[in-house]
């Protein structure tokens, strides 16, 4: 069973219509210094491919203002008693000799350790995955567009995490 934690009313969830908006909000709010976490929304408000942001309820007003300033649309803020805290950024690396595969969730980014070129994107099943693959494959990690700038789904979210870990490994010369 997934771990669920009772947190009373000290935490809140910001809900978004599109995963794409959640991804943009996560990046903008983290850059603004807020401590937040991407989590699954509660079952009663899910519509399909969903991603919410867990926030400290005491800074709700500031976060709502920041989202409006960033022009990132959101549905609203709720205060559920139970939060599903499955992590979305479990990363793992696999060495294939001249290539390295970075997996996050159901998505995998594979790059050539000699050149930093992304050679394959594997996994996923949402409709933005083929476009992500087409846009990333054959490009150098440092020159490729970040998946979160093109994707709409949770597959894009985990692909983005894998891409950024791969980029970090490449830039730090840890290959």
């Amino acid at each position, binding site marked *: 069973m997934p771990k669920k934690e009772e947190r009373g009313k000290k935490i809140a969830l910001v809900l978004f219509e599109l995963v*794409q908006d959640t991804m943009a909000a996560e990046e903008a709010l983290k850059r603004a210094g807020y401590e937040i976490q991407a989590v699954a929304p509660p079952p009663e408000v899910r519509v*399909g491919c969903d991603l919410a942001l867990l926030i400290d309820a005491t800074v709700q007003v500031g976060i709502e203002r920041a989202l409006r300033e960033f022009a990132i649309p959101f549905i609203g803020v709720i205060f559920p008693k139970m939060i599903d805290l499955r992590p979305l950024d479990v990363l793992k690396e696999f060495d294939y000799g001249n290539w390295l*595969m970075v997996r996050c*969730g159901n998505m995998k980014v594979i790059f050539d350790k000699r050149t930093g070129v992304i050679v*394959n994107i594997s996994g996923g*099943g949402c*409709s933005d*995955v*083929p476009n992500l693959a087409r846009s990333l494959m054959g490009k150098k990690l440092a020159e490729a567009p970040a998946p979160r700038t093109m994707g709409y789904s949770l597959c894009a979210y985990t692909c983005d995490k894998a891409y950024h870990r791969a980029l970090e490994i490449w830039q730090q010369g840890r290959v």
Partner: protein
Amino acid sequence: MLVLAGTVPFKGLPLKQGVARFDDDFAIGDNFALPAAELMHCTTAMIATATIACRALGTDPPYAVIAGCLGEGDGSKLVYRFLAEQAEALQPKVLTLHYILPIRLAAEKFIESLRHWKNKPILIADAGGMYVMKPAGFAGDFDLMTPDPGEMAFLADPDAIHPAYVRHFISEVDLTAIPRLIKEAYEHHNAPRVLLVKGNTDYIVRDGEIVATVSEPDIPAMECIGGTGDTITGLVSALAYAGYDLVEAALYASRINRIAGLLTNPTPATRIAEIIRHIPAAIEQVLKGVEYVAA
């Protein structure tokens, strides 16, 4: 008729439907074509593979239904609507749902419609088709799904709404994990009649019982190659349409896919189009009972 449905990564492409062809180019009907070398992993790789397999098996080619969707949902909605309102008229014997944005309400309309069809087809789901049907509670309406280990964990977890949310990922050395997850998926009624779990070892499951496993030939690079799961789905769809029992179809699909990989001699940089080229020879080897003959 074998009907294959899903989205393709071409922005604004309206719903296209027609008989699939695979010669120098891959084509659907008269107004969608793609050079064979440009096949990417996704619905097109699945349809191309099924088309090749149907030819090798001596059946008529598949009928494909696609729409462009980069993830914003427009093309996915067109495909769901087609399935709910028009697919029955095609009288499919096998219907496979592939890449698509999970939109619960649209999926519910399709399943509600399907339950009133005069003849229910063999229903197969992979990718987004699986991602939308399981959390909506419709996995049991399907006859076959083809999850990888992470997706198997998603089917096993009654609360997971997407494979991205699965708490624990499968340890590569934990040989007990897949059988445990299979058991849990059936306990929670989140599995179809038959499962083909794709991985280092492929598991073929009927009604919760593992009836076969396939581990050889083992080609580790195939995990890196986007589309190796899509080719399995195309193969199993074509085999089911040719009349193979679903367990048998899954077993052959697993073997054919591995042999196609072996014939390609792939690296992690190999593209799926290269593997697809070897599928006719792989089908011939497997169906004739030839042991592995590498390129």
